């Protein structure tokens, strides 16, 4: 169900974005776009399958607290 939604949304995004680039023959843009598109799509698929994606913010929090020792005390 979630996967279906993700696929529909991404097809929608592609339909909205692609025609302009193809019509103007911006192939370089298209290549970059496809890479990003695929990356986000993979991310979406992972989320749809309930895979736990590690949060970069949490990694940063650990980095600031444990390596740099920069953090306030929680009240």
């Amino acid at each position: 169900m979630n996967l279906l939604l993700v696929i529909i949304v991404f097809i929608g995004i592609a339909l909205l974005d692609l025609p302009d680039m193809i019509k103007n023959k911006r192939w370089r843009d298209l290549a970059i776009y496809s890479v990003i598109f695929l990356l986000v799509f993979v991310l979406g698929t992972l989320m749809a399958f309930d895979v736990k994606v590690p949060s970069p913010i949490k990694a940063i929090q650990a980095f600031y607290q444990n390596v740099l020792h920069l953090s306030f005390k929680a009240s």
Partner: protein
Amino acid sequence: MKKQAVKTGGRVLRALSVSFSQKCRKGARRAGVFLLCILLILCLCSCWSQRELNTLAIVLGTTLDVGDQPDTLTLTAQVVKASELGSGTTTKGNSSGGKAYVNVSYTDNSVLAAVRELTRMQNRRLYFAHNEVLIFSGELAKKDIAEGLDVFMRDYETRMNVNLLISKGKASEILDENVELEKIPAIHISRLMGNQKSNSETVVVTLRDFAIATLSGSSAPVAPMVELYESDGKKYAKLEGTAVFKKGKMIGELNKEQTRGILWVTNKAQSGEKTVDTPWGQVTLEVLHSSSDLKPVKGEDGTIRMKLTIDVEGAIQGNETTENMSIPENVAMLKGKMKNDVRSDVEGALVQARTLSADVFGFGEAIHREYPEEWEKMKGNWDQEFPKIGMDVQINAELSSEGGLVKPVTPGGAQ
């Protein structure tokens, strides 16, 4: 003219051809917008969290009692029956003339568990957003009031301006009182609380006030008490006295006069009536306005005393004597009597507070605000310090009016 027409025609044609070439893109965009609209229609009406009126059980009053098992409590919720409510004075209609409310009750380990459990017995979900009163039984208050407080403060549906009361006896019975002017006991109690300005004998406390006093650490939270009395075999609720809390537990009570004392000190007294005895009989004075100001003052020896200034403005409301009370000497005497009356209220409350060692007046907070450094030293053993704090009371009384009569109605007074 013709040229112009041709020109515009051409322009229209050109625009058409352009639009034709863009038709494909426009179509896609239109489809996108259409999908978007569908999505918005689905979501903006928030069907997901919809709560229709006819699926809700609107709770107007809640009580908490000690349960029969150890560590349980009984939740009773008063749910309004809308069909009975709308019938007005006519008894025909659809209304069967029954009660306009239903009390549902369940005993469980926690408040929320009881609420969830009630969904197995009721087809409507309890909806607490319109809850007007929250009544704890005295028995529960003496054990622990914290759990009920936490739930009713934390939940997003409940509000912090519900009236908090403590019942003498079982709290659920309060919601079963016979109501005559209102249709729902919870509404009766809630309006009753709104009406207490005129006698200044009840503390009106919302959940917020109670929580603030609880958080302060030095103040002793207070809450009004409600009890049932019987008349002609029917039970009615009335407000009587004040419950005093310390460390999350109810530790004592104040009577009517002591409650009035608290209100004088905390600047919550507004109006009220005083009957004073004169050598000729009783005279009734009405308090029209009053205000008070509580301030800690540091003496030369470094001790802190509280200084209380009360301004009272009153009027002669009733004269049972044959004496003319409007002459200056009598006015002065009445003023003095009024002062003494107020003073005895305040001192009575102070004595009781010292006995309980409960800072019902907020002395601690006042000292904290005025003398933060001294407070740091005192707050460690505030329980021992509080009874030692002295209070100077200064009362300014004014009698501003004599009502509609210059002289009393006395037999033969016309001569």
